[in-house]
């Protein structure tokens, strides 16, 4: 067989073809660093990183949900619900750990309900998660009486506001989460099964994968991570807020899709998702640094998104 066309895995072209969105990100980053004042400063980098903490943490598991061919719209409410939950429990018991635990568990419960309804009852993921989105937004409001629940234990604020080696703790958390979920995706049976299910559910089932169990696990993880993100947010804001994170779900999904995750399932890479999250954050950041008026920000943000996905697409034509 003629093998002359086979590209070396190490060539630059191979890299661009497979990781074009990373290349686009790097180019964007360099351009912004050069042309946008204050962009490439330590403070701004930290601010940028902090601005993507919530979306980044959740993107980890959203990648799995999308990778398995499903959809999760409930994350925004989960963030609010678990933040309120944590705040209420901390105030009631005075125990910070119990509060953190309750917030995360609260998220996990949303996830289990989603996973069970989708996997076992076979209900449409979009509708199910839209329904739980409403239900748990409502629960957050009910639990808090519609008001931000101020937290009295100052110890809790450490989670979101302390520094480790000069870098805010939430940034460490997001880095660690990227590593863990990257390994989970690439180096475990669970990750591979997720993509197999997304690629061809029937074939995956026949190949002996426990599809239902995998899906429930994915959604439960998703709930837990959204819950965790909610707890961190509550800690950073020193209160649990029932109306936090509205519309977050589309930001997270967009970041994933921008990072090459297929909405039809079966395709997902951690590097892509990280870059997707960063691009979304970078655009907002640079627009504010440039003092672009609010209304024009919408237009520019949309246009940049279009251009990024177009450039990403171009590479496939060059094959």
């Amino acid at each position, binding site marked *: 067989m003629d093998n002359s066309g086979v590209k070396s895995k190490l060539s630059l072209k191979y890299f661009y073809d497979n990781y074009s969105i990373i290349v686009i990100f790097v180019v964007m980053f360099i351009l912004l660093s050069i042309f946008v*004042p204050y962009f490439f400063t330590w403070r701004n980098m930290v601010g940028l990183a902090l601005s993507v903490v919530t979306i980044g943490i959740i993107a980890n598991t959203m990648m799995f949900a999308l990778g398995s061919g499903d959809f999760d719209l409930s994350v925004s409410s989960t963030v609010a619900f678990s933040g309120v939950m944590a705040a209420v429990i901390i105030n009631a018991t005075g125990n910070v750990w119990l509060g953190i635990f309750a917030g995360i568990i609260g998220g996990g419960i949303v996830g289990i309900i989603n996973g069970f309804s989708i996997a076992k009852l076979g209900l449409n993921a979009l509708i199910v998660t839209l329904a739980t989105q409403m239900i748990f937004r409502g629960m957050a409001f009910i639990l808090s009486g519609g008001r931000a629940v101020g*937290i009295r234990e100052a110890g809790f604020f450490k989670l979101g*506001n302390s520094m480790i080696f000069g870098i805010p703790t939430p940034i460490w958390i997001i880095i660690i989460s990227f590593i863990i979920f990257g390994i989970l995706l690439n180096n475990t049976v669970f990750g591979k099964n997720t993509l197999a299910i997304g690629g061809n559910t029937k074939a995956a089932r026949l190949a002996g994968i426990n599809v239902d169990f995998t899906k429930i696990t994915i959604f439960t993880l998703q709930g837990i991570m959204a819950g965790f993100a909610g707890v961190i947010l509550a800690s950073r804001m020193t209160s649990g807020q029932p109306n936090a994170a509205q519309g977050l779900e589309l930001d997270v999904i967009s970041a994933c899709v921008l990072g090459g995750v297929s909405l039809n399932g079966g395709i997902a890479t951690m590097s892509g998702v990280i870059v997707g999250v960063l691009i979304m954050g970078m655009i907002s950041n640079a627009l504010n640094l440039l003092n672009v008026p609010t209304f024009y920000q919408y237009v520019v943000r949309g246009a940049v998104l279009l251009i990024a996905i177009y450039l990403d697409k171009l590479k496939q034509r060059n094959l």
Partner: protein
Amino acid sequence: ADVKIGFLVKQPEEAWFQDEWRYAEEAGEDYGFEVIKIGTTDGEKVLSAIDNLAAQGAQGFIICTPDVKLGPAIKARADMQGLKFMSVDDRFVGSDEQPMEEVHHMGISAYNIGKLVGKTLVEQMNEMGWDYDEVGYLEMTYNQLPTIAERTNGATDVLLEKGFPEANRYESPMKTLDTEGSFNAANITITKHSDVDKWIIAGGNDSSVIGAVRALEGQGFGADQVIGIGINGSNFAINEFEKNEPTGFYASVKLSARQHGYETAELMYKWIAEGEEPPKVTWTAGTLMHRGNYEELMD
């Protein structure tokens, strides 16, 4: 017949409107009428809510409209359905850009609240003996909502009028009107002006100021370097005042949800039941809520 009064609000999840509702219901209990609470987040929902009220036999309603320009449409619909109505908080504006004088209203103008914020910021800076030239002004804007924009404009206008340098005014547009949105927007501004070591903050509500306070704290700015003044006197604000150590969140302009909720409902009831027409406009005042007085002002 039984009296039923609708109470429509633009942001049903907001504590402010929850309070208005609660006080309206209190009036309902006192006078023996039923309050029908409907959240109407956009114009289309307002119109269906009016239809809905008419369908269940309500005689009138009180509304905080999601957009003041909806005035003529709301009036037309209400007249068609034969419902009495009055506006609260936000005053209707006609197609001629003028307030609709013919509609009964109770409220405080968004712009005036903003002015109170600005006035307090000036006083507080003077008290601390700050030199205006060394102070940065974080103007947390959210121009997607006109009433929020009016509030921040009010604060800014007073500041500039009192000699605060325009050059130190740093507009920070928020992507979302919540604490995180404020946090992210403020962070960027602070980054851009890392030489400033004293900050004042104004925003459209409490959460848009608190996010900025958190961002400043994250960069090491303590309560002696920050003056933030919110609007609403909501739980957000109270949480801040309840903390052991003072934070940069100095005060909040407390509006009287009790007055807006209870009295409008009362006026509407009397109008329906006794034919007593309410005054065309009633202006209420905002009070400044801070660490010293918040416990008395809490509802």
